[in-house]
């Protein structure tokens, strides 16, 4: 392999084919929308669509022509914007990680997008879209090397693959999901309605087909996003790779995980399958960016056996437990508040983690490292007060889930409120001492 080109110290442009991807993605969305529209009213040249596509392509061209980047003074500098000039300056030492996104069109053209992950900052503009594939790999390695204080010709650190979920498994698992169950129930209900009231066949079919279409679309997106899911251990964290049409490679830096959720949907239980999801601290705005680049899932393990999940959880949060014994449940009288979920409302905590289990059909267990706790809340409604119950919530900087210990005995909840702040403080001190 030849020596990769060094990072540009003079202003450089992105890959000349970038506008095609930018424009193409917008165009694809527009064309689909217009095609659906004009299917209803044939024989009409969709002029508006053509103009819209033209605007999208020109927009991509302009973005490409005004965007330049370089590495200067230990900063990655990106200048962009036609009317409102925007200058993004990223100190290389602040880079937490670099994600690689490859939308379908970019893959076809051999391009990749690099997205910089910074702690608690809006990363919306800190991206290089797009670079040539090899160039992207080289730039990523060089930026990370410099970020870690090494020289930029340090070879990319070796990754050790630790887990692989084949595409077939993802498909099966998604077909057994709650979403699919809802769809099946809907179809059954529709068939029953049609048998008993044949006169309403038209509207019923139309409704069911529309609803199922949305259902299938979400399922297909999920499958596509998690296709051939792979995990690898790298020195700076755990690397996730997946994708059927659009591929992405993402890094979870060590010690950045705010919470892990262990999910067991109803139909997975006979197979002993589990899904693990993770939550990291990022700002709201970034979620929008993630959605734009098509990232739908935050799975650490899209589907796997209990052993795999246990092993992976232990790897990420050493010593954490997600399978809680029945003895850590809520009092019998909580059945008035949680008629279905009472048996699985469980709570376990030690000096390092707190795990809360909720849900009946889909059992969710959220594991929060006490060192990541931001605040602790107690809540007691009139019903719970009569039943001498109270709920305790544990908030983290993640956005997707909170620890949720519902309907504990009042005394136990009071003890939790008294002890958790101290335990969390001790855990924080411990974590920062290490």
């Amino acid at each position, binding site marked *: 392999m030849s020596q990769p080109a060094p990072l540009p110290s003079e202003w450089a442009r992105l890959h000349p084919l970038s506008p095609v991807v930018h424009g193409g993605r917008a165009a694809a969305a527009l064309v689909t929308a217009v095609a659906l529209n004009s299917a209803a009213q044939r024989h009409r040249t969709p002029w508006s669509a053509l103009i819209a596509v033209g605007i999208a392509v020109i927009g991509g061209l302009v973005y490409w022509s005004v965007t330049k980047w370089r590495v200067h003074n230990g900063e990655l500098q990106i200048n962009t914007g036609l009317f409102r000039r925007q200058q993004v300056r990223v100190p290389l030492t602040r880079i937490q990680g670099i994600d690689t996104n490859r939308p379908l069109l970019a893959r076809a053209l051999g391009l990749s997008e690099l997205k910089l992950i910074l702690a608690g900052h809006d990363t919306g503009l800190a991206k290089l879209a797009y670079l040539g594939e090899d160039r992207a790999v080289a730039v990523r390695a060089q930026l990370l090397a410099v970020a870690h204080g090494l020289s930029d010709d340090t070879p990319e650190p070796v990754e050790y693959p630790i887990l692989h979920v084949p595409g077939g498994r993802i498909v099966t698992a998604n077909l057994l999901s709650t979403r699919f169950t809802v769809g099946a129930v809907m179809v059954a209900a529709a068939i029953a309605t049609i048998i008993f009231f044949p006169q309403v066949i038209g509207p019923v079919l139309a409704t069911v087909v529309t609803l199922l279409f949305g259902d299938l679309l979400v399922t297909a997106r999920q499958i596509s996003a998690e296709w051939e899911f792979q995990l690898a251990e790298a020195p700076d964290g755990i690397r996730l790779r997946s994708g059927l049409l659009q591929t992405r490679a993402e890094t979870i830096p060590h010690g950045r995980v705010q919470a892990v959720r262990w999910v067991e949907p109803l139909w997975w239980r006979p197979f002993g399958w589990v899904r693990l999801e993770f939550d990291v601290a990022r700002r709201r705005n970034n979620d929008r960016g993630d959605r734009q680049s098509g990232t739908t899932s935050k799975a650490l393990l899209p589907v796997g056996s209990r052993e795999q999940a246990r092993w992976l959880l232990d790897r990420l949060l050493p010593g954490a437990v997600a399978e809680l014994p029945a003895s850590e449940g809520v009092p019998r009288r909580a059945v008035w508040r949680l008629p279905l979920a009472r048996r699985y409302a469980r709570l376990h905590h030690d000096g390092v983690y707190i795990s809360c289990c909720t849900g009946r059909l889909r059992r969710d267990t959220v594991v929060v490292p006490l060192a*990541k706790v931001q*605040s602790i809340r107690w809540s007691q409604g009139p019903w719970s007060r009569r039943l001498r119950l109270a709920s305790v919530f544990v908030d983290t900087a993640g956005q997707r889930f*909170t620890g949720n210990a519902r309907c504990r005995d009042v005394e136990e909840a009071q003890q939790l409120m008294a002890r*958790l702040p101290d335990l969390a403080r001790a855990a924080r001190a411990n974590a920062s001492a290490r």
Partner: protein
Amino acid sequence: MELDWLSPSPQMWRARKLQLGLVAGVAILAAGLGLGIGVGAAAGIAVAAGIAVAAALYGVLLWRRYRAWGYAEREDDLLVRRGVMIRRLTVVPYGRMQFIDVTAGPVDRLFKLATVQLHTAAASTDARIPGLDTGEAERLRDRLAALGEAKATGL
């Protein structure tokens, strides 16, 4: 645990009374006069009385809500309690505070009141203390900011 629970200023209750009184007064006048002239005196009086009773009941709830607010500064964290029907208690470690907001609406300013709100990196933290005297709000803000600085920890 012996805790010094502090309460919002009595001015807050006055402010709430004024707000309620204004809204209820306008509603009673409008409905009473409107119906009284348009439909008949009996209807006007009945509706006005109804609104007055509802406002009085709501006033009782406001009073109890006002009484329920409380906050306590412990060595390492701040406690905020609130709520009548649903009672809530929030514990925020000083080291977790990202920033502190002090806001005062027009009515609050009239009564020299302010609301202090604590923000952590978690969006679900709801630590808000309304109805503080401006002086107390400033003291709390400065104290919390200083403590937050001293005990700050990373994410």
